[in-house]
């Protein structure tokens, strides 16, 4: 193995362009593993990068060179992290608000569609029937008078 395992990783660190496709890893039972999924993901990612670091160490002449290369990648990641955190917070907050608004509005729409409109239509039917019978009664009274 001579290829740098971190080759081209800089472009994959960018959250705006990296593919959102995911894979599921089966996690073995180990003492000390966190229960929360996000914490578990941190352990897995630490493992992924630790293994890549080990492979990097195999591809270069000494540990110092490996540390420098890994340091450059980590430094790039650390530079991106504050912006990433900001956008993640922004987008998550916006999504939560939009989901809440959509839920509330959805309920309002359902009430209007399933209750208010049928009730209004029912009332209109009764009104029309009453208008018709009132007109008939008035017209009938006119005929009675003529007779």
């Amino acid at each position: 193995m001579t290829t740098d395992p971190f080759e081209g990783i800089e472009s994959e660190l960018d959250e705006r362009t990296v593919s959102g496709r995911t894979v599921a890893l089966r996690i073995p039972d180990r003492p000390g593993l966190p229960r929360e999924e996000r914490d578990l993901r941190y352990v897995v990612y630490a493992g992924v990068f630790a293994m890549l670091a080990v492979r990097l160490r195999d591809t270069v002449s000494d540990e110092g060179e490996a540390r420098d290369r890994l340091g450059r990648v980590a430094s790039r990641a650390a530079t991106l992290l504050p912006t990433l955190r900001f956008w993640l917070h922004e987008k998550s907050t916006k999504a939560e608000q939009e989901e809440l608004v959509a839920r509330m509005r959805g309920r309002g729409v359902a009430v209007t569609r399933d209750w208010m409109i049928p009730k209004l239509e029912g009332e209109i039917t009764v009104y029309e029937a009453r208008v018709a019978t009132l007109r008939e009664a008035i017209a009938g009274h006119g005929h009675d008078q003529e007779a």
Partner: protein
Amino acid sequence: MTGEVRILAVDWERLLRSFPEGGPLRLAREVVDRGLAVIGESVDPALAWAADHVQALALMAVHRFDYAAGRERFAKASEMEQETYERELELNRDVVPPLKERAKALRAEIRRLEEEARALGLDPGRIEPRVNWDSTFAVDAYSRPEYESNEARRERTVEFFRRLRPP
């Protein structure tokens, strides 16, 4: 096995390229063991040189996962918000007002006819069907809401500030 955890495919595929031997199951086990060995208080001495950098990368990767995997949710939330807005607008602009206006006109007509019947000596209370007014929508004072387009609203705002501008 304790279950599953998802990571970005691009990261897993990078690892598979670097470790083609062994297979995914074995690799996943090794990933977890290495992960536990590089975080926490007692870092594996063989990985000590890389531990800080690995932790920094893992932290960033967790956030990046949340962002990239969340894109679909973010887009869907916006889509749902827009969809319910349009549905609500459609009901409140195109469906409900004509019904309320029709009901309002009919209620006024009923009252007029009842007056006319009374003037003729008839008892409207004996004419069916009767209306239980208390259980109906009181739409007698209803007036259709006015909806403005964004362009109309913008023009009105510009006009407002134009009037405020000193000569």
